[in-house]
């Protein structure tokens, strides 16, 4: 005859065990392998627990059954835990073995480091280099500068306007040549100022909207002029200024550091956008060039419209 109470107890035990297995398998596997649990008496689920002695008290029988079921469940759980620990330990042992095999392949041996000394090629001594005189050579841009779009009625406001300078007595030329509307790069067509940071200033004679300042330094050769700064102001002493262009990245001219790029002089001149800024005076600075310390100007054109 089938003992239903016993089978019921065993089913409960199995279900609880399965639930615990699921819980244990979800635990963090990175924890160090626990020490193997002490050997427990092995029992299996299929082992039949010893039949309880029959008694004549039914309540006591149920309590005994529950106790027995609990003990059996506990034993089964302990067995399962032991098995799981054993499996975990084996797994860790295998992983460690694998690591010991792989580790020498991936890790570099620890050695003392010293600076790597490379013998660099020394300069080769030479005689006096050739003396190249400047000839008239223009370095082309490669393509024309894109046209700047400006409002209708824009004109050259600086034409024949008065020019002043930090150097009142240029070594070559006269300051009025800078606004004579002649930008040809020919002998005698430029004004040369002293070395160091020098400026030229154009008085437009009234406040205007400025859309572009186009200027030519010495462009018969592909020179690069240093510390080129273009500023506008309504004040002839340039106390309050707006800077339109500044490539003096190290502030060697003391007008503030700028991040505009150096450029090679060409016959197209340098165009600096004004974006309609309102000003009466335009000032251009420079500080020598790649060929000499002097400051040369051929022409400055200020394009815009008077404010009516």
């Amino acid at each position, binding site marked *: 005859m089938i003992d239903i109470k016993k089978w019921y107890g065993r089913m409960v035990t199995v279900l609880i065990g399965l639930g615990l297995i699921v819980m244990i398998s979800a635990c963090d596997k990175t924890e160090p392998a626990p020490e193997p649990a002490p050997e427990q008496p092995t029992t299996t689920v299929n082992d039949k627990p010893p039949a309880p002695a029959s008694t004549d008290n039914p309540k006591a029988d149920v309590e005994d059954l529950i106790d027995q079921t609990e003990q059996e469940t506990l034993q089964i759980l302990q067995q399962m835990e032991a098995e799981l620990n054993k499996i975990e330990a084996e797994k860790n042992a295998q992983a460690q073995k694998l690591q010991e095999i792989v580790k020498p392949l991936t890790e570099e041996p620890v050695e003392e480091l010293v600076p790597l000394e490379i013998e660099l090629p020394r300069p080769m001594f030479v005689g006096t*280099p*050739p003396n190249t005189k400047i000839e008239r050579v223009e370095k082309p841009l490669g393509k024309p500068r894109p046209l700047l779009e400006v409002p209708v009625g824009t004109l050259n406001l600086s034409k024949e306007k008065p020019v002043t300078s930090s150097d009142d007595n240029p070594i070559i030329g006269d300051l009025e040549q800078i606004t004579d509307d002649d930008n040809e790069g020919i002998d005698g067509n430029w004004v040369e100022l002293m070395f160091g940071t020098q400026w030229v200033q154009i008085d437009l004679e009234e406040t205007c909207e400025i859309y572009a300042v186009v200027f030519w330094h010495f462009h018969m050769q592909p020179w690069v002029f240093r510390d080129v700064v273009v500023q506008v102001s309504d004040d002839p002493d340039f106390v309050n200024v707006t800077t339109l262009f500044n490539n003096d990245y190290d502030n060697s001219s003391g007008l503030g550091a700028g991040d505009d790029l150096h450029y090679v002089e060409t016959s197209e001149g340098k165009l600096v956008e004004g974006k309609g800024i309102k000003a009466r005076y335009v000032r251009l600075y420079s500080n020598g060039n790649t*060929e000499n310390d002097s400051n040369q100007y051929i022409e400055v054109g200020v394009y815009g419209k008077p404010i009516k």
Partner: protein
Amino acid sequence: MKRYLFICAIVLTVAAALRLPQLSLRPMHTDEAVHAVKFGELLEEGQYRYDPYEYHGPTLYYLTLFTAWLSGAHNLSELTEHTLRIITAIFGVGTILFFLLLADGLGRTAAFFGALLTAISPVMVFYSRYYIHETLLVFFSFLVIAAAWRYRQSNSVGWLLLAGAGIGFIHATKETCIIVYGAMVASLLLCRIGKGQNEILRGAQNGTSSPNDDKVKKGKTGSIIKGKHLIAALLVGMVVSFLLYSSFFTNLQGPRDSLRTYATYLGRADGRGVHDHPWYYYLKMLIYTKDAPGPWWSEGLIMVLALVGFMAAIIGKGIAKSNIRLLRFIAFYTLMMTAAYSIIPYKTPWCMLGFLHGMIILAGVGAVVLVRMMPIMSGRVIISLLLIAGAFHLTHQAYRANFRFFADQRNPYVYAHTVSDVKRLAGLIQDIASAYPAGNDLPIKVIAEADNYWPLPWYLRKFPQTGYWRQAPQDVNEPLVIVGPVWQPSIEEKLEGAYHPEYYGLRPTVQLKVFIRNDLWEAFIKQQQIKN
């Protein structure tokens, strides 16, 4: 005498005022930088080997040891332009002192004018401030002439030994010493022949005969220099030359190389080099130069006065207290030197110092002759005023050449010269290095033809991790790369996008492109922004 010495002191002061200040102003010429780096090897390693193919003799390097020691420099990176150029500047001033030794032979006034013109001549001043051999060559040549003259006057062997030492120093300075020797010997012979002819003529005119007639006919009028003194002087010269060329007995091949070198230099003189110019190159430069819009330059005053002095020396009239034999010697010497340097196709402007100095000595005499030629006082005053005005103009030119147009091609004495932009490049690299973690150990690659990277080895002397490639290497990944014109397109292809480019001039029409790795450039800009 005291007044004369006082006037000489003023002349020396003017000479020093034009030569000594701001010696670092002008950027280093390629030749100066090469000599500087070679001197650096002597300073650091204590060794010098004469190179018979280039770079001239050892005197410049050994003399610079004194200024280097005084300045406390122990290696190339501790040297400055001032430490190097002060040597040639001092010798340039020192050349003027020899006029004191020749004052009795030239006449005091002529010696004073000669000294003054030496002090203010734009060419003499300009190359006195150059770290090259020319000023030393002029100094030692003039030393020989002055010391030999003093020996003639005093018969004191010490003077002749000094002249002998001068001959040795000339040989140890530059290979063009053979032109100097040749001109001196030829002039002496011409003077002797001339003297003999004069005495024959005088004898014929007077119709007298004397026990000395035979000797006179044979041109033998008695030795001025005692044979044993001459031999001693030449021996001193040989010892001086041997000591220097052998690097004080550490390179016994050196003295032999100092003779072998003439094969190289004779080959250079045959008219197939980049520095070949027509025979009138030097004379045209001295008479008048005006290149492009800008100031004009001329030492025409010296040349005109030199011509007057030359004619006076040959004719033998109007020379007042000057010794005719000394004058004729200097006249022939100057003529020989001018002819030799004009004939040789290889010409660089500093080579004219030798014959120009002879012209200056003659010009001093010529100034006196011109003034004395005027029969009336007003004429003498006018000539004197014109000479003073001319002297002021020469002084103004000397100032302009050295302190305004010192690296400008419109200065005719600026030849194949580095532009000032190179100093800005050096400044940029120093600033970049301060933003680099290892500082001056910043790795720098210079890729350019050998002609197109000097004088960078001088300006980058404080950066030990700098290498110089004449051809583009495979790897150009250094934080900072400097590229000459030929290699710019190919290097630009490799570095575009990862590097920030900047342009810097090296010499006229020679531009370098400097590539700075973007991260380093940004660190530098940030540093500049903080500073400002």
